[in-house]
């Protein structure tokens, strides 16, 4: 089979491939944000964390020659930003949303500043696992070149769900997010739990960022993120604070993001930019469809400031 023989069948295939590829950063950021929000605090700074993760991961991979070291450093940079967010929010009369926006600007700004020297050089990329070895079609093969980080994210979601339900850590996290008063009466330290939850959430978001620069699109520049960090926050609401639903939501958004390029590849160029806007239109449409002015969102942690 040659390249053209797939014809229109190339579109769903490309959307599927895109869903897997584009969804990975969404998946990590939304899982991290889900964890943070379960503790009753919202971190809007994950966009900055994502970009910072992309930069630090790329720089580390370039300097050490090991992309996995880059992933680790990206995660650590993310948890550092998360820790900063949590420490500022622990002060009296500090609004977590305002802090998040400030950290979003800080993270991106810092990444641009520190990342200038790394725009030109090519860092080693994360290896992909060729799940498409059985096929003779180049398109199928490239679509099924799956990055191990995606699989890690897939495994992480049910693990988080299990952890939130059956481990002491998960239960304490949820109690803090559901009722600070009850948590205090039980003797749990609310700020410490939220600090750990925000740091862990930052770690995941940083790892998500490293995927951007070390796998797809696979380079470091200042236009690398197109708002995935912020979209992922909306994703968590859409997924009703359920880690497993976060996977499906991420795949949906990834697929929507791949629609424009997929159509272009089969020759549909009209409305290219319109199709590229699909994820954003989808965000808006879903938020409108699932929200109501009358009542609170089901499943929202009761201590979350935006839903109170």
């Amino acid at each position, binding site marked *: 089979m040659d390249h053209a023989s797939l014809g229109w069948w190339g579109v769903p295939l490309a959307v599927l491939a895109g869903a897997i590829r584009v969804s990975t950063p969404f998946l990590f950021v939304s899982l991290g944000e889900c964890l943070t929000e379960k503790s009753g605090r919202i971190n809007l700074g994950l966009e900055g964390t994502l970009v910072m993760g992309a930069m630090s991961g790329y720089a580390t991979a370039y300097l050490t020659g090991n992309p996995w070291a880059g992933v680790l450093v990206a995660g650590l940079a993310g948890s550092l930003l998360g820790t900063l967010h949590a420490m500022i929010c622990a002060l009296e009369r500090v609004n977590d949303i305002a802090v998040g926006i400030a950290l979003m600007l800080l993270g991106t700004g810092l990444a641009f500043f520190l990342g200038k020297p790394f725009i030109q050089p090519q860092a080693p990329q994360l290896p992909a696992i060729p799940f498409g070895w059985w096929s003779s079609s180049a398109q199928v093969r490239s679509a099924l070149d799956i990055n191990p980080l995606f699989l890690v994210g897939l495994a992480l979601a049910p693990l988080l769900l299990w952890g939130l339900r059956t*481990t*002491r850590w998960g239960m304490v996290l949820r109690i803090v997010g*559901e009722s600070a008063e*009850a948590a205090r*009466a039980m003797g749990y330290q609310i700020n410490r739990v939220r600090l750990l939850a925000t740091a862990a959430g930052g770690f995941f978001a940083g790892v998500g960022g490293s995927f951007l620069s070390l796998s797809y699109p696979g380079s470091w520049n200042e236009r690398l993120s197109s708002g995935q960090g912020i979209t992922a926050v909306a994703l968590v609401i859409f997924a009703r604070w359920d880690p497993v639903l976060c996977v499906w939501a991420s795949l949906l958004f990834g697929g929507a993001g791949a629609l424009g390029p997929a159509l272009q590849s089969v020759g549909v160029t009209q409305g290219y930019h319109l199709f590229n806007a699909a994820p954003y239109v989808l965000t808006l449409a879903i938020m409108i469809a699932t929200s109501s002015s*009358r*009542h609170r969102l089901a499943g929202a942690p009761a201590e979350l400031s935006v839903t109170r």
Partner: protein
Amino acid sequence: MNVMSRIVPQPIIPLGPADGAPAPGLEAVAITKRFGAFTALDAVSLKLRPGTVHALLGENGAGKSTLVKCIMGFYRPDEGAVVVGDREVVIGDPRAAQTHGLGMVYQHFTLVPRMTVLENLVMARASVPAVIDWRAERRRLAAFLDTMPFTVDVDAPVATLAAGDKQKAEIVKQLYLDARVLILDEPTSVLTPDEADEMLGLIRGMALAGRLSVLIITHKFREVMAFADDVTVLRRGRLAGSGAVADHTPDSLARLMIGDSSTAVPVERRGPPGTAARLRIAGLRADDDGGLPALHGVDLTVRMGEIVGVAGVSGNGQVELVQVLAGQRAATAGSVSIGDEPYRATREEMRRHKVHCLPEEPLRNACVPGMSVAENMAFRSFDEPPIARGRWWLDPAAMRRAALDLIARYRVKTTGPDAPIATLSGGNVQRAVLARELSREVDVLIAANPVFGLDFAAVADIHAQIVEARNRGTAVLLVSEDLDELLELSDRLVVMSHGAIVHETTPAAADLTVIGRCMAGH
């Protein structure tokens, strides 16, 4: 530690004094607690004998909560000691209190609403395994509940339990945590009279069996007389009196609580209510914050010069009813009319029909905490002369003058009209809102729990204002969780349960058993 192993009992305590060690006593010795220059507690002592029920009485601000918080380790007392059994103990935080066998049930429930009873109880334990085997925990809790004189559905999310069952779950939690000395903070404030009697009876039974020593914070004399062995009365941070309940009468306790200062004599309702219906609510329906129906067709009429009391356990639609009437919530069906005209609670209609509102928690629901007393008092009048010149130019001097007049007339204690209203005490915020709402001509007054958390003097004052408004011909809808308040003030009394009016009576003909049963939804 030797001391602790002696005090901490076995995990499962069989009922009856013969099995296991009897519950220890508790003693607070000359406890003093200061907050800056203010002395909240001045050398207060209290002795809870083993296996008894001890009532702690006092007005709001008398220091009851401070004393209990010192015992439970929330505050560290400046002077004095806490003795459990016969050992002096130092309690640094609530967790430490738990290890000494002290447990407290708070006025506001502290269970996590969206988690099940089982999850709540397991997570409250001092040590929880890293990975929880829910099936084993469930078996263990069920076995423990078999030793209890009452049952609780352990798999129900706490939010779905009735108030009485929530209270029981809180008590079960403390017993599950091996509490042998139980402190209850106003335990019956959210219960129907029947539920309260049942709960206190069970508690007393366990105390008599030697299983528990109980300290109850309360302001209800009836409960003290019926269920307590001993009583301690606090007044303004000092010990006003203590002793066996048998040696006291409700009158002598009241004198100890308030002291010799006389309070305002209650204003009498004068004359029969009018005959013309003023506020008419028909088939009113509304949803709660969760989008679920909260009002299921409320029908209610209030005549001129009449106080209609709405009784009910909180959470049965009273909040939503008041919000619809105050314009804070949209009705989904039904109608409200004033006189003969439909009423949709717009600002213009409120002004035209002279509808005024005293919502509960006025600082939250009727004030802007950061704005000044004068500004808060002008919320009804800032857009009309004399405060607004030419309808849009604000005259701050006129606003201040109006506020000074109201502050004097309604005896609002404030450092001045420019102080942020959040700096006032609860009673004075209530008075300031009352001044704003009642100083103008009022045809319809909607009041919700208007004296919640206020001291005797403020309560008498605000009740007098409401009755005076009624005597002037105002139609008053009074929603309250305090049945005594309603019986005292109302011309007519209705009971609200599950979002509907289920019973109507007059205070004179009221049968408490019937009312209690209606409140409980039977």
